[in-house]
């Protein structure tokens, strides 16, 4: 079976799904969102990192068996607290072979969730979806040109996968990183809210306001943080487009 590259495993992840959860960060992402706060998750290869003056290699190879065994050590605690495991990244769908193997080993034992940009081939998305209990998916921008400008990719695949998700009946949460001057405008939020209206399996929308500490990790991987917008500005926090449509909204 394919092995995977993991760049972090975090216990007691509070904002990544229900109950007590462990979040697994899969390395590598096809998007290049300029505000990305996990730059070490972008490259698919292990890379050198300097943290508090200490050099280390970021990215470790796991076989599906090793990862699932590690996660299953806390099976009892996950069950006790309605929790489980959340896969994030990077973009976890980019290592779908590995991910599916891990999910198969966890099936029926642990509640599983994913945090994804939704950027993946349709077949991949469908296959992974079938193994999950909860999906947390980003809808960063509805306008395809702006999406390409700020994330480096078109949102055509994302929107198509969103349709798949919305019609699957699988419980899901939509996450919107609110970036000042990038996607916090009324038009984008209106368009997003319109897309989300009346979907019964949508649990809620979570807005993640941008914070300037997002750039903190760039020096650790020897890169400069240059997101192309005013990093001192605070995003507009307007939830009215969602409220008007009776969509439950939370600011994280």
């Amino acid at each position: 079976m394919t092995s995977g590259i993991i760049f972090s495993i975090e216990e007691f992840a509070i904002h990544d799904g229900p109950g007590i959860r462990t979040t697994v960060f899969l390395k590598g992402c096809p998007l290049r969102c300029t505000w990305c706060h996990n730059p070490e998750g972008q490259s698919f290869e292990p890379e050198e990192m300097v943290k508090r003056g200490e050099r280390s290699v970021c990215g470790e190879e796991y076989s599906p068996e090793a990862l699932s065994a590690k996660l299953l050590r806390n099976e009892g605690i996950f069950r006790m607290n309605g929790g489980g495991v959340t896969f994030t990244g990077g973009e976890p769908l980019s290592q779908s072979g590995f991910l599916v193997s891990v999910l198969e080993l966890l099936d029926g034992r642990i509640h599983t969730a994913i945090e994804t940009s939704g950027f993946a081939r349709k077949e991949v998305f469908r296959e992974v979806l079938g193994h999950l209990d909860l999906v947390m998916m980003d809808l960063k921008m509805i306008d395809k040109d702006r999406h390409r400008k700020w994330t480096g990719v078109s949102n055509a695949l994302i929107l198509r996968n969103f349709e798949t998700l919305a019609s699957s009946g699988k419980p899901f949460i939509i996450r919107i990183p609110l970036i000042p001057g990038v996607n916090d405008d009324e038009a984008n939020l209106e368009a997003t809210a319109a897309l989300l209206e009346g979907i019964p399996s949508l649990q809620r929308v979570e807005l993640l306001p941008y914070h300037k500490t997002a750039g903190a990790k760039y020096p650790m991987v020897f890169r400069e943080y240059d997101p192309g917008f005013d990093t001192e500005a605070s995003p507009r926090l307007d939830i009215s487009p969602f409220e008007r449509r009776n969509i439950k909204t939370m600011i994280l």
Partner: protein
Amino acid sequence: MIERLESLRQYLLDKKHHAFVKTAAETGIANLNGRFEKKGVPDQMRSAIVFKEMMRCQEPVILPGEKIVFTRTVKDVPFIFTDSEWEKVKTSHYIHERGTVSNISPDYETTIRLGLGARKKEVEARLAKGDVDGQGRLFLESVLVCIDALQDLIGRYETKAREEGEDDTADVLAKIRTDGATSFREALQLLRALHFALWAADNYHNTLGRFDQYMYPYFRHDIDNGILSEDEAFDLLEEFFLTCNKDSDFYPGMQQGDNGQSIVLGGRDAEGNYLFNELSRMCLKASYELRLIDPKINIRVDSKTPDEVFEEGSRLTKIGLGFPQYSNDDVVIPGLIRKGYSEEDARDYVVAACWEFIIPKVAMDIVNIDGLSLAACVKKALPQLKDSPDYESFYEAVENEIFKEADRICSRHKDLYMIPSPMMSLLMDGTIAKARDISLGCRYNNFGIHGTGLATAADSLAALKAFFFEGKRFTAERLMDALEHDFKNDPELKDMLRKEAPKMGQDNDMADAIGTALLDSFDKALEGRVNERGGIYRAGTGTAMYYIWHAKDLGATPDGRTAEENIPANYSPSLFMKQQGPVSVIKSFSKPHLQRVINGGPLTLEFDQTVFRNEESIRKLGMLVKTFITLGGHQLQLNTVSREELLDAKAHPEKHRQLIVRVWGWSGYFVELDECYQDHVISRIEFNV
């Protein structure tokens, strides 16, 4: 918080009431000891006379808006011996800390119910019985002196209240001067007077025990009879909590804030009922609103405690006071029974000043008499490493050192002398009947020993097991040489031990089993030992300030720790362990046989303040606590801190006067701590979830 209390809180924080304070010297009572020496006054009566003079010299003051009165106006308590007398006492006796009775849980309940008048009659009746010897007579007379002195001060407060037109307050004082309390307000006022009296009697670490249980009947009475609304009762409760912060600058402790004013909420009774009532809930809410370091809140929980209690507790954790601290009835009660406490007494347990489990009313345990450094025992065994054929035989050498250290420690506590405490005696069970001062003992007279450096010891042994005995990656000579040079000559070995070796707190079964074995050995080393008061010795997982003292002489350790680095406080992982996360920590630290280390000492988890942004995060913190309890952890304390804020507070103390942190078993104001404690708090682990 209502405006009256908001202003009173600010008044106290601004320390305006200190304007009324005089020193003992200014009131003319500083030199009582000289007179005692000249006249040959027995120690028992000295304590009573000093107390009487302390009461006499108090100036009754009613602070703006106060309904619950009593403010200390004499700063220091005169010592009963002269310097030369005390030196003499010390040469022939073991003296614990300051020498006065401390760190026990008094019986306020009985006196609040019966009243000082009835207690006085009880003492008089005991005196009138023919069977009292000379010592007993002196003791009972000394108690009467204390009661009279306290009643006199209550009377003067009553007069003051009348003068100021505070008739409600005056009526309450008139009642409680002799009678037992009927209403919640009377009960709180009498509790305040008794608590005040203990501090003025030079007792310290005066805990408040199961406040939500013994005050509940009065609370219920007033609510049921329409005397108080819930809101009014809440205001009185908040005001009582405020009184705990009034005089605390004058309370003795190792550091400012270490004053032991703990209260314990909840707990399960013999019938299986979980005793968390409206008053318990209100206590959490009052503490949340007041945001002050006293009283320090503990909650007794178990695996069946409703989620609500963990959530309410977490809400309080969030604001960063360093409490509540949780203790697990499922572990503590059987653990206490195992050590010889009766089931009934064990079910009534509370925590002492910090975390030590004690029994209110009936225990004169000295729970912090000494500390045993487990890390030092590993260190002392190291010369035998080169001749040890396998890990098991080396561990035997370590255990042998633990036994030797226990021998040494237990032989130290001979001819204990404690200064008589007639006021405290009045508030402890059986003293009047036996006509003996509490300083001489009570139903339980056990001694507690802290176990320090557990993680350092366990990690050192885990490193040796994995890399020396199994991996054969270095020789004994190389290790000894590196330790002697504080790893300066061998950074490679240091890195291997420090970064690669398994550690307790990573949910590593091998390292955790070693931690378990060490605690078992510690308990075994104290088993069967009897102290001179007929009590037993209890092993514990707390460190108190020993984590600073024991780190000093330790030198470098085989876990890769250098000589100048700290050891963890209490029952916590190494300060430089590679974190797997809080779930691994609670798993590791719930594996040992914690019923065997019933002197207590909490696992401490520190979180970044920003973690708890919303209700969901508070609920999840509650889940984490409950999980630790369900897994069989004995005691847990959580702290929310922000590293940036601490660093800034160190640099600019004037901007952070109100910053509260948990230090070892108590919370204090960060800027008032000595630098070594500040640095330890900063270096402690912190989860950025």
